[in-house]
């Protein structure tokens, strides 16, 4: 458990207050004041759980650009995988060859690994079951509905596609 620090409180407060405005969408002074008080209280209590490192490290034009590109890369992968999955489902659900493969991952920190794991889970056809560390390298255990390749590195290239490269650029 770490101490509450001012940049962490400020960034959590900004996110909470933006969310409040989005949900209420009224700009009367009373509502904004109530939202500010509630956001500040939430930020004071919760910021130390959310922000572990530098609070504003993502505020950088290069990172925003990478994030924007990543959204489209991800949507492309999502559409491809969804069409494949829909074809399997409508084709009688017999065309499956499931298995769990262990895939190496090479990303700078825990946030990036969590983001890639969630992206993989969100893509139909692959679910991340676990993350393990072995000899200083991290591995995902991924349940794959159609095991096309049992070699770890090649399977990783097929599953992760271009997503890993762009996530690495966001969090570098």
């Amino acid at each position, binding site marked *: 458990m770490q101490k509450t620090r001012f940049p962490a409180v400020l960034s959590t407060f900004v996110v909470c207050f933006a969310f409040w405005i*989005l949900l209420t969408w009224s700009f009367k002074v009373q509502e904004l004041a109530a939202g500010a008080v509630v956001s500040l209280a939430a930020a004071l209590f919760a910021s130390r759980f959310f922000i572990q490192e530098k609070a504003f490290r993502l505020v950088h034009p290069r990172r925003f650009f990478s994030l924007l590109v990543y959204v489209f890369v991800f949507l492309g992968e*999502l559409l491809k995988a969804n069409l494949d*999955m*829909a074809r399997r489902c409508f084709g009688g659900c017999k065309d499956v060859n*499931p298995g*769990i493969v262990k895939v190496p991952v090479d990303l700078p920190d825990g946030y990036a690994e969590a983001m890639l794991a*969630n992206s993989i*889970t969100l893509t139909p056809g692959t679910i991340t*079951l676990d993350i393990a560390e072995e000899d200083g390298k991290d591995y995902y255990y991924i*349940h794959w509905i159609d095991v096309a390749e049992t070699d770890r590195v090649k399977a990783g290239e097929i599953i992760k596609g271009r997503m890993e490269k762009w996530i690495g650029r966001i969090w570098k």
Partner: protein
Amino acid sequence: MALRIVIDVLIGIGLVFALAGTKGIIKMPDTFCRMQASTCVNTMGVIGVALGALLYAIFIMGSVSAAIKIAVIALLIITVNPIGAHAIAKGAYRAGIRPDKPMETDDLGRDLGNE
């Protein structure tokens, strides 16, 4: 008129993917494959329906707050859903659920056996 057609097509695309996912949940052979099919419903299904509803809220209802709420709902479903799917799949595996037909490869079972 053209806008109504675009909205209906988007919602239709979402419904087709939701139907595919639902059929997969019922017909797939084992637990993990059923979970895989269910992700179809809450990715493309949600994105298609939410995009259609977003266009409807902005251009036909003319309500900004409804549009923002729809966007927030879609964003929350998409960010929170994989965490639940991961936890359920891992819990099922740890609880000893295995498919009837042996899997193609099972690296997790092999590594757990070595511990």
